[in-house]
Structure formats: structure tokens, C-alpha cells
């Protein structure tokens, strides 16, 4: 009983809450899908929303837990997505089983994204604050540009690659994997909601386990007070690199699931705006608050869809809602007012 308690409560309480909510949501959604009660619009959103939640959790690891602002995380999602497309397409004859191929693609995407994450972290983590943020923005743009100018084809002779100009000459039966700005076309849509949820569950385990470990504590210490952390023997750059690379890997994995959900995928989709969107999900859910991220991402991705009836005005309302929420959650006057209201409702006497 004690062991059970230890695994589900105490330190692991938040992990349990997140897992429970995700599992319950999954079961409910699956039931609704089987009984045909879900609109196709909603069904089409299942994989994207789950992917975004995973990326947002990954970003929260960097922004909330590690305390560094990353403005280019869509780049890691992009790397994952296109790696996934390449792997899935290239192995389609070797591995007919879609699920196995998808999992292989996810692993590949995570590894490639992690490698890029490591390479990028070398310059990035030498900087601090806004300068660090700007370099992550720069890298996001560079990644987008690189993929935009990549022409990668695959045929019976193997891979064919050209840069900036398309000089790829495919034999019959060959396929363009990445066609420059056009990106990936004719991809087999092998992503499933179930696999996406599984990846989300794995992510929750990985992130919470990381936070509740010496590595997590070191990262948070480095975030809270750099100089004190160094005086306690913590190598700041090494610690933050671990969190950054882990985050890149998770974002890459999410990118695979996202990318293999669409038959066409353009590199321009993963731009600065996308990075900012994910950042908004994270900040609104609460820095370092993983459960908050799951809720905020779900709501914010669904909100524009729910507001579709407002036609052109929906993004405008979205923007206003965003501004109002930020003001409400940050203005001390309003916060004080709300606190007073709560105190009144609890029946606490307030002698002022």
C-alpha cells in the first residue's frame, strides 16, 4: 500500500493528476467516436491538439523549469516532422505495418531533433536572457530556411539531394520526400490518436520524472539563482543543456506525430508565429505547471474552432481574450479584488 502511495501520491501527485486526466479524456473520446457522436471537425483535431500539447510540455521544460525563453521551438517540431516523413516514406516497403513504422519514425524524429538541440544549445546557452531568446529565434528561422531550400528525393538508387535549386532527377517509381518550399506531399497518413496519446503519456512520465530527480532540481536551482547554484557545485551550462536537448527530443517526437497526420506539409508552417503560439499556450497554463499546460493548450487550440461561428471576428475575439486574461492574471489591483471576493465567499472576516 505504501509503495502504491509513493508511486501515485506525494511527489508524484501532479504526475498522477495529469495521467488520470489524459486517460479519462482518451477513454471518453474513444467511446464518443465509436458511437459516432463526435463531429468530424473535432475528430480531425485530435492528433494536432495532442501534438501541440506535447510540444507545449516540451517548451515548458525550457521556459518554466529551466527558466530560458525559447522563441524557436517550432523548429524542433519541424525537424521531427520532416525526419518522420522521410523515415516513414523510405521504409514503407520494408515495414508494411503502419504502427511500427510510425513508432520508428517517432524515435528517429526525436533523435534527430535532439542532435540539433544539442548543436544549437552550444551557442545558445553561452548567452543569457533576451540575447538567448533572440538566438533561439534566429535558429528557428534558419531551420525553416534550410528545409525550405532542401530538395530531397528517394528512388531505387537511393537518396538524391540538392540545395536551393531543384536538380533532383528521380528514376521512375521514385518519390520527392522534401520538395523545397512545397515540402512533403503524398505522405501516408499513419498517425493515430491512440499513438499520439501514448506519446503524451510517455512525455508526462519523462518530464515529471525529470523534475523529481537530481537533474531536475539542478535545473531549477540554476533557474532560481545562477550564482548560488554555481557556489553549490552546479555546472549551469551542462545542466541547462540537458533540459534543452530533452525538450528538443520531445518536440521532435511531437512533430513526427503531427507531420504524419497530414498528406501535405509545408516548411513554412513551422515559422516564428508557430513558436510564439506554443509559447502563449505555455505562459497561459503557468510556467512550470504541466497540468496547466495541458488544459491551456487544449482550450487555446480548440477556441478558434469553437469560435468559427463568429467567422472573421473569431481571431479578433481570440486576441482580446488573450489580452484580457493576461491583464486579469497579472494586475495586482484586480488580483487583490479577486482575493477579497474569495475571502468574502469563504466567510472570512476582513477587518480593514
Amino acid at each position, binding site marked *: 500500500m505504501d509503495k502504491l502511495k509513493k508511486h501515485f501520491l506525494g511527489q508524484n501527485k501532479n504526475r498522477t493528476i495529469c495521467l488520470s486526466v489524459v486517460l479519462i479524456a482518451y477513454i471518453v473520446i474513444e467511446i464518443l467516436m465509436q458511437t459516432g457522436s463526435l463531429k468530424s471537425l473535432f475528430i480531425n483535431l485530435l492528433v494536432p491538439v495532442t501534438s501541440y500539447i506535447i510540444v507545449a510540455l516540451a517548451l515548458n521544460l525550457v*521556459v518554466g523549469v529551466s527558466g530560458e525563453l525559447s522563441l524557436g521551438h517550432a523548429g524542433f517540431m519541424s525537424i521531427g516532422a520532416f525526419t518522420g516523413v522521410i523515415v516513414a516514406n523510405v521504409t514503407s516497403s520494408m515495414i508494411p505495418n503502419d504502427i511500427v513504422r510510425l513508432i520508428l519514425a517517432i524515435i528517429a524524429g526525436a533523435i534527430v531533433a535532439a542532435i540539433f538541440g544539442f548543436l544549437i544549445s552550444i551557442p545558445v546557452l553561452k548567452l543569457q536572457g533576451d540575447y538567448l531568446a*533572440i538566438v533561439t529565434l534566429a535558429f528557428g*528561422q534558419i531551420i525553416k530556411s534550410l528545409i525550405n*531550400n532542401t530538395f530531397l528525393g528517394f528512388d531505387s538508387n537511393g537518396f538524391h539531394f540538392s540545395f536551393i535549386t531543384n536538380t533532383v532527377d528521380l528514376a521512375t517509381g521514385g518519390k520527392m520526400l522534401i520538395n523545397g518550399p512545397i515540402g512533403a506531399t503524398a505522405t501516408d497518413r499513419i498517425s493515430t490518436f491512440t499513438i499520439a496519446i501514448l506519446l503524451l503519456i510517455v512525455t508526462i512520465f519523462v518530464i515529471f520524472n525529470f523534475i523529481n530527480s537530481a537533474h531536475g532540481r539542478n535545473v531549477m536551482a540554476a533557474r532560481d539563482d545562477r550564482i548560488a547554484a554555481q557556489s553549490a557545485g552546479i555546472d549551469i551550462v551542462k545542466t541547462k543543456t540537458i533540459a534543452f536537448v530533452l525538450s528538443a527530443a520531445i518536440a521532435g517526437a511531437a512533430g513526427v506525430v503531427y507531420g504524419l497526420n497530414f498528406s501535405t506539409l509545408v516548411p513554412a508552417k513551422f515559422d516564428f508565429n508557430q513558436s510564439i503560439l506554443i509559447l*502563449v499556450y505555455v505562459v497561459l497554463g503557468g510556467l512550470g505547471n504541466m497540468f496547466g499546460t495541458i488544459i491551456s493548450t487544449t482550450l487555446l487550440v480548440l477556441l478558434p474552432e469553437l469560435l468559427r461561428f463568429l467567422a472573421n471576428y473569431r*481571431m*479578433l475575439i481570440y486576441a*482580446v481574450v488573450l*489580452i484580457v486574461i493576461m491583464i486579469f492574471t497579472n*494586475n495586482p489591483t484586480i488580483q487583490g479584488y479577486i482575493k477579497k471576493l474569495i475571502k468574502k465567499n469563504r466567510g472570512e472576516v476582513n477587518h480593514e
Partner: protein
Amino acid sequence: MEFLSFLITGLGLGSVYAIIALGYTMVYGIAKMLNFAHGDVIMVGSYVAFFMVAQFNLPGVVAIFASVLVCTLLGVLIERLAYKPLREASTLSVLITAIGVSYFLQNGAQILWGTDTKIFPNVFDLGTISLFDNQLHISVLTLVTIVICIVIIVALTLFINKTKTGKAMRACSEDKATAQLMGISVDKTISITFAIGSGLAAIASILLCSTYPAVNPTLGSMPGIKAFTAAVFGGIGSISGAFVGGLLLGILETLAKAYISSQMSDAIVFLVLIIVLLIKPTGLLGKEISEKV
């Protein structure tokens, strides 16, 4: 000779970036926030100027005045409504709010004026001059742009250093609380900062549209990102930094487009930025901020 031509074009583009970057750097230095909506104020300025000239057939000069007026008011309004309530909040919260304002402006523009791209009329065509036995052709507008940029920088620097308001701005950038105790109205100072930045954005928008005449709701996005990059590149919070950063970015972008690849020019510019920051972690002209232990 061709190089010189590209250099001058680059300086022209860089001047526009510098003027925009000034808005970012001043607001950062004094209000301690990254105003992501700045690029979209430029967009509004472009539309105002466009309508003045294309719809109402008013002379270019009126368009300039109208644009500056609208942008200045818009900047001050945004500050009062969206940023002022968050003065004590974390930088990240203000950043998100600025993003909200940016979405608002972009989508508002879409609703009001449509998503189609309008073409800015050639009102400010000042022709070209030829030098060195017709080997070098320079657009007069480019030269005018560079001159305007230099004039603005000099005027702004004098303003900051010699006037009472300028002193107030410097005080606020150092320590808002103490400035307030010294009798400086922080609210007024910040409003003036936004007013100046937004007014300059209007000027930048007209210069931008005269060379790149496409007007659409997202026109401010890329120049905004680049100018923000330039401001950080030069050392965020520093006026001379915005000037140097903007010019260098413009030159880099133009040369990269000309000599390496048009499609990769952005990536190259960002790569150079990264390299510079690795050598000088607080930007070219930025100050080293050391923490007191």
C-alpha cells in the same frame, strides 16, 4: 561598382530597419518590455498612408502627417490599455500581451481592409541619379531614406541628452521608482516613449512602402522581427546600437541576396547575428550588465 550599388541599397534598407529598431530599443530601455506589436503599428501606418493617397487622392505630405498622427495615437492608446496594467508583471506576461495586441491589429486590419495585397502608389518617386559616368545609379529615395535616418538619430540623441523630457526618459530607464520619487511622471514619460517610437514607425512604414509597395495585414511581421533582431544585435536599449544594428542588418541582407542566394538571405543574416552575439554576448554596442553579489 556593383558592390557600391548594393551597399547603398543595403544602407537604405538598413536605415528603415534602424528607424523601426529605435521603437523597439527605446521601449525596451524605458518601459522594460519587448513590444511585439510594433511591427503591426507599421502596418497600420502603411494602410493609413495608402488610403490617403490612393483613396482620397491627397498629396504625399498629407499622407505622411496622417500616418504619423494615427500611429502615434495608436501607440499611446495600446500602451495605456494593454501594457500599463501590466507594469509590475513579469516580462514574459507583457510579451504575451504584446503578442495579443499584434494578433488584434493584424486581424482587425484583415476585417477592415481585407486580406488582399494592395499596391502602394508611386507617390514618392524621386527618380535616380547617375554617378561615375553612368556606372552607378542610385535611387534618390534611397539617399533620402539614409539622410532621414541620420537626422532622426541625431535629433533623438540630442533630445535624450539635452532636454528635460529626455533626462526623464534616461532616469526612468535606470530606475523607475527613484525617478518617480524625484517627481518624474513615469506614466507620462512612458507614453511619450511609445509616442515617439510609434511616430517613427509611421515614417518607416512610408519609406518601406515606397520601395516595397505591397500592403497587406502581415506586412509588419518580417520587418518587425528583423528590426527587433537588429536592436538586440546592436545592443538592446541603446539608440546607437539600434542605428548600427539596423544599418548592418540591411547591408548584410542586401549583400547576401545579391552574392549568395535570395532564398537563403534571411538564414545568412540570422547566422551572422548568432556569430556576433557569441563574440559580443550583449550586442555590438550593448552594456555588460554585471550582477551585484
